[in-house]
């Protein structure tokens, strides 16, 4: 992460020398002032929020998403810091097939071993690319891991006790979408779309310093974007009334599209989305399968985090393409499995 102006002689040269010193103090001072102000005005602020049930519910949902995601974010980031610092580059060239087209399915299936939700897999995929893994394979891993790991599939089985084919459909469709996206990236993707954020150079540091440097950087960075995504998701969660959904559910095509969009907007953790899908009982099984396949691959908090970790040019191409492919494959799978 770019830190402050004073730590960058290249930029400091372009800025007037005057405010240099102040800016360095600035960050911490602003933070301190902000916190003091908030502690002082705590009473009135909390009071105001309680007066508006909508605002209060929003705050609860936002805080919940953050609290729920925090262990996954922190452990995902810690794992990616381990990859960055302790796993030698040569490991990946040995572990994955040489040919990128073969590395894609291997990386997709490797997603089975990462028992987490999507917040953790974004920094891990970024770390893999940094360590020389072909982007196609890292992206296939990014898409597959949150959807096909044992915890998520078990949750799906529990949520759909009468439809075990939902578990099979979800696992298969997610794998296929991850592989298609990996191969698409090989055909159409351009490496310059991916702009990994500048991270402090780790090579010259002791392992411990490098580990904590990477950890700090990724938590602040991916975490910041997670906050933006969580705010958007909480807003949707609180303002979309359930009646709207009822009206859409009767049309089979409309319901597929509606649940694909809802999966993007709601940004529910992949470990929980099956229960929400189960409760959307007015919708067809196929459209609910679409919800389960799209959700872990494209949603507001993921788009926000991908824009942060891989760059905006990447995220604004990758997310819509994934959405279309995932919706198409999941609809096809649903048609095959449920008919």
């Amino acid at each position, binding site marked *: 992460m770019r830190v402050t102006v004073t730590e960058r002689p290249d930029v400091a040269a372009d800025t007037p020398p005057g405010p240099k010193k102040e800016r360095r103090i600035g960050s911490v001072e602003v*933070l301190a002032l902000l916190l003091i102000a908030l502690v002082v005005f705590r009473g009135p602020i909390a009071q105001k929020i309680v007066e508006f049930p909508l605002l209060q519910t929003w705050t609860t949902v936002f*805080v919940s998403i953050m609290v729920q995601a925090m262990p996954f974010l*922190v452990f995902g980031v810690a794992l990616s810091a381990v990859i960055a610092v302790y796993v030698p580059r040569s490991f990946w060239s040995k572990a994955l097939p040489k040919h990128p087209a073969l590395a894609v399915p291997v990386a997709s299936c490797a997603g089975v071993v990462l028992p987490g939700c999507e917040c953790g897999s974004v920094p891990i995929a970024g770390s893999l690319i940094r360590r020389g893994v072909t982007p196609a394979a890292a992206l296939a891993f990014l898409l597959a891991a949150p959807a096909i790991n044992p915890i998520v599939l078990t949750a799906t089985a529990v949520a759909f006790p009468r439809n075990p084919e939902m578990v099979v459909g979800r696992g298969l469709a997610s794998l296929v979408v991850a592989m298609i996206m990996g191969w698409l990236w090989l055909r159409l993707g351009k490496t310059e779309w991916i702009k990994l954020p500048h991270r402090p150079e780790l090579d010259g540091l002791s392992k411990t310093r490098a580990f904590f440097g990477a950890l700090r950087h990724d938590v602040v960075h991916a975490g*910041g974007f997670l906050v933006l995504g969580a705010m958007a998701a909480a807003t949707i969660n609180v303002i979309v009334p359930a009646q709207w959904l009822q009206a859409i559910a009767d049309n089979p095509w409309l319901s597929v599209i509606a649940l694909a969009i809802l999966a993007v907007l709601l940004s529910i953790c992949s470990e929980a989305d099956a229960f929400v899908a189960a*409760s959307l009982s007015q919708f067809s099984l196929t459209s609910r399968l679409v919800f389960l396949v799209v959700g872990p691959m494209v949603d507001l908090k993921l788009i926000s985090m991908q824009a942060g970790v891989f760059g905006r040019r990447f995220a604004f191409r990758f997310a819509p393409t994934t959405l279309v492919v995932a919706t198409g494959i999941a609809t096809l799978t649903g048609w095959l499995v449920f008919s």
Partner: protein
Amino acid sequence: MNRQAQGVVLLLLGGAVLKASLTDMYLRYVKESLQPFLIAAGALLVVAALMTIYHDLRKSDHEEHDHGHDHGHEKHHEPRVGWMLIAPVLGLLLVAPPALGAFAAGQSGSAKLQEADLYPPLPEGDPAKISVLDYATRAIFDKGVSMKDGAGKDRKVQISGFISQGPDGKQVLTRMMLSCCAADARAIKVGMTGRPPEGLSENQWVEVVGIYTATTAKDPVSNNDIPFIDVLEWKPIEPPRNQYE
């Protein structure tokens, strides 16, 4: 945002997560089973923050590694996204919003219940204390059969939840159900006949003793069935430690 400020934000975030997870506060937002992971994540954040501040204060000669590798991307606003991490800190430490209540229950409508394969006998005791979900499931799918005693008489059951607005404007007893966190919360509502609680405002917790009744209603929001309970007695209570089921 410089590294010192990042260290402070991480410290606050880790501290907020630890505070929420070492007290019962986290139960307002997530499932109980997440607690050990929350404590570990909070502790790791605090350690990372302390290491960051420690390394920064030592002003090591490795400083130059932290710059000079600019790839000219995303202008200079990118690190600013780190400021957003103050939002959850404020949410947890300053606002500390309560568990979801009547507003969320009205918004989401009654949940679709899962039919069980078998309904074991009610627990011992008179009245038998059961969860709202258990009552609703037995009432809707089992038509109350498993809530009868040996002589075929309805047993008294005790359930607790908060008051919210039901379909026809009458108050219902509600409990929110979590799968993961409050973002996926679904409401279980139970209508009340017989001697329903009176004079209670929304979000007031209440303990109700009653017997099965065949009355049901449709929740217009989600189009799912709402079971009813024939209330014999009720009393207002303090919210339980874990407000979700």
